[in-house]
């Protein structure tokens, strides 16, 4: 403690009072809030990691699998406790967290109760720490969004700002959990928001960065995986990557279908009863698998690191990957709280490594190391299951920190994405939400819907001079100012507010505003949206 005489204290306080008061506008305050959310979410994730570690140490021993009988029974006990926590105290904490965050964003203005975040922290620490084959990223995303929502409510932010905060917190949570800020930003944009939103982009980036910095300050600066360098030795190797994309796409759709089928049948047949029996059975399955393959327990990132370093041969890689599919599907469909992000990466890594290692033996020309196939496999399977192709590409790029991988990952991911989409049209989380009775809009579909444009509805003829003279730039003006004009590529949605009681608007060229291309009639617009039964008399009306 610094000891100063009393007079010095008085002078110091006076000097502080004389400092100019920094006034911040709403945008600046929102950005500042994003940093705070990033720090808070980062701290929550650090606590989450610590709890998972402690539970894992107590229940399974370190490293995982070192105590045989604990390995068999700990996942079952953990599954029962976590389901009990959710059932008894925090029902809002069920599921992986992504569906719940999306639902909160779309259905309740981004409002997530504090109980959801607290419940996720408690229940998922137990379920994942005890070895159930689920991951911490999706719960971290939900916790981050929950923290942001609670903070927004405490600061009495208006509803529109509160809605913007949830994705900011979600990005911070996943960035801290996966230690990859770019991936987090893209994942939230693709999966949670469903598109670019300039209002929140800066905040999402800021929150992600501050969350990663915070978590690294506590957990250390080492990356999640230690990725060895690799080379693309021959261009024909791309064919192997394409085959990997095909296989991952097929497996991703099977994986999604298996989980959805299991969950649907369980929900239909048993409803809310036998929750504990289901959880115990899934936990026991994880324990049995873990007795022989402890790699499938928990998030399994150390096994992925082993695969990256060529620890396993292809039969072991494929066996571990397929076993993880079963164990994860059982855990998720049984309602054990935990995420799908890590298991998806795990399965992809093992399948990719297995195929790469197989190709290294039988491909006619030498191919690069299997570590590249492990990484690309992670991305392809992720693209197939989550339908977030951009996130998957940048995730591999960010994890590997290598530009050389971008070509194989793009080829494989796109093939996996297209194959999975063809075989399983509805994305994973949309299907899961539907089983829960929530109908969420599909971001994937929204991305592909082409909005109606003026050129689709306009009539191509020159309007009468009475209209022309009201067009800006035509040299005429009169009562009410110049007539608003629209452009052919403008969306109908943006054109509609410009009518303001007028029956029609001129459509002008963007190259030359004086050049009139046609007329947009209000009736045609209404007809386009199905609000008029049939074309009316104004068809002839014109201008």
């Amino acid at each position, binding site marked *: 403690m610094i000891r100063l005489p009393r007079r010095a204290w008085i002078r110091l306080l006076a000097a502080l009072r004389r400092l100019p008061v920094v006034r911040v506008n709403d945008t600046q305050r929102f950005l500042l809030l994003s940093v705070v959310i990033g720090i808070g979410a980062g701290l929550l994730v650090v606590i989450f990691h610590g709890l998972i570690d402690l539970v894992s140490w107590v229940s399974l021993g370190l490293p995982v699998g070192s105590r045989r009988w604990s390995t068999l029974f700990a996942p079952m006990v953990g599954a029962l406790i976590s389901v009990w926590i959710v059932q008894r105290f925090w029902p809002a904490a069920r599921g992986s967290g992504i569906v719940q965050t999306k639902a909160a964003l779309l259905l309740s203005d981004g409002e997530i109760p504090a109980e959801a975040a607290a419940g996720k922290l408690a229940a998922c620490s137990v379920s994942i720490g005890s070895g159930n084959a689920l991951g911490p990223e999706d719960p971290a995303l939900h916790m981050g969004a929950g923290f942001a929502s609670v903070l927004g409510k405490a600061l009495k932010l208006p509803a529109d700002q509160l809605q913007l905060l949830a994705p900011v917190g979600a990005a911070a949570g996943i960035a801290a959990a996966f230690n990859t800020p770019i991936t987090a930003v893209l994942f939230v944009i693709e999966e949670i928001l469903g598109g670019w939103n300039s209002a929140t982009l800066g905040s999402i980036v800021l929150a992600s960065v501050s969350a990663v910095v915070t978590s690294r300050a*506590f957990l250390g600066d080492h990356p999640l995986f230690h990725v060895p360098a690799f080379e693309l030795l021959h261009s024909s190797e791309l064919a192997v990557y394409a085959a990997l994309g095909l296989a991952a796409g097929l497996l991703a759709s099977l994986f999604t279908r298996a989980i959805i089928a299991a969950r649907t049948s369980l929900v239909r047949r048993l409803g809310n009863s036998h929750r504990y029996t289901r959880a115990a059975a899934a936990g026991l399955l994880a324990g049995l698998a873990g007795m022989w393959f402890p790699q499938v327990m928990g998030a399994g990132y150390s096994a992925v690191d082993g695969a990256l370093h060529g620890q396993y041969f292809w039969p072991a890689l494929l066996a571990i990957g397929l076993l993880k599919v079963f164990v994860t599907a059982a855990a998720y469909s049984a309602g054990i709280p935990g995420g799908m992000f890590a298991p998806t990466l795990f399965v992809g890594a093992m399948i990719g490594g297995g195929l790469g290692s197989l190709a290294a033996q039988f491909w006619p020309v030498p191919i690069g190391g299997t570590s590249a196939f492990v990484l690309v496999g992670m991305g392809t399977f992720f693209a197939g299951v989550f339908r977030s192709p951009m996130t998957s590409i940048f995730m591999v790029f960010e994890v590997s920190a290598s530009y050389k991988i971008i070509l194989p990952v793009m080829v494989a991911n796109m093939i996996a994405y297209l194959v999975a989409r063809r075989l399983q049209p509805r994305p994973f989380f949309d299907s899961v939400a539907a089983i829960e009775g929530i109908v969420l809009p599909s971001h994937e579909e929204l991305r592909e819907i082409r909005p109606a444009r003026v050129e689709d509805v306009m009539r191509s003829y020159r309007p009468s001079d009475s209209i022309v003279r009201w067009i800006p730039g035509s040299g005429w003006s009169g009562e009410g100012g110049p007539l608003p004009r629209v452009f052919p590529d403008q969306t109908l949605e943006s054109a509609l507010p410009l009518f303001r009681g007028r029956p029609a608007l001129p459509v002008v060229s963007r190259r030359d505003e004086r050049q009139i291309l046609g007329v947009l009639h209000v009736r045609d617009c209404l007809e386009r949206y199905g609000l008029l039964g049939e074309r009316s008399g104004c068809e002839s009306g014109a201008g």
Partner: protein
Amino acid sequence: MWFRVLAVLLALALAAGWLTSASDAIHQSIYQARLADAARLESESHVVEAAMEFRHALELRSDSFPARLGLTRCLTRLNRWPEAQQHLIQLRAVQPANGPVLLLAARTALRLGGRAECNELYQRAVYGHWPEAESAQRLEARMEWVRFLASYDERQALFAELVRLTRDVPLADVALQLEVASLLLRSGHPSEAAEALRLALTQDRKNYDLWLLLGESELASGRLPEARRAFANASSLRMDSSEARDRYNLVTAALVLDPSVRRLSLAQRESRTKRLLAEVRSHLDACSAALNASAREQAQKAIARPLPRALEEQVDLAEATWQIAQRICPPLPRYGSPLPLVFESLGRMPE
């Protein structure tokens, strides 16, 4: 309200700090135990179990350099070269000049077929950084490198490194001195080999192998009296060794025939020269029986040449006859007869 937010963040930070330090402490203690177990198992040559323990240590601390290095060592001993290579890439990224790492990288490159890379890696390993405790292994690395160079007949680099090694190998390490001298001899540098061996003999004068190799080195250098002395010493140390005795007899026979030996009287030189000429003629006569007609005629002509009067001319005649014998007869084994040794010795004499 902002103060409350700050208070919440502070509370979260405290909780995170406590949990992280608790988790770190657990990890650290288990990690240390695993690492110690792994090192013990490795030293007891339980390599598979040691590799498993190193893997467990790495799971607990993925940035641990000693655990990764230990695992890589075990993997090379288990012939799991591709996996070892992946770990080595990472180890080299962390410590690019680490001698033990580069040595493992060289061994791995050799197994995976990268000969040029292997040579470079050996060189970098030898001149890289070696931890104090492992400095003895640096010498082993150098020996491994020279063996590699010898096996691929990289003469220039081999000689340069061997000469440096003769200075750096501890005199007390007679076995290593012997190996260095042997490699020098095999790579065509008998004088340097003999010098190294003489130095080693100052430490252990009763070492049979040192004397025998010294004899071979002196013999290869054409110093027959010194070779005979070395072979005599070797024979006296191991009476039952036919190798040293045979060499001794051969060199003695060569010395008896050699007219160029110092401190001989003129009469002795003349008598030796005549005896040498007679031996060569007899060898040529013996081999000519199996030759074709023209070669036999050539041999007979050489044998029939009259003996000149002057001693130097007699020596010249003996040499000319030997050259004809070498040209037309099947070659004599170098150490199968004293004749090649005597003529080599004569050839080295100044004109």
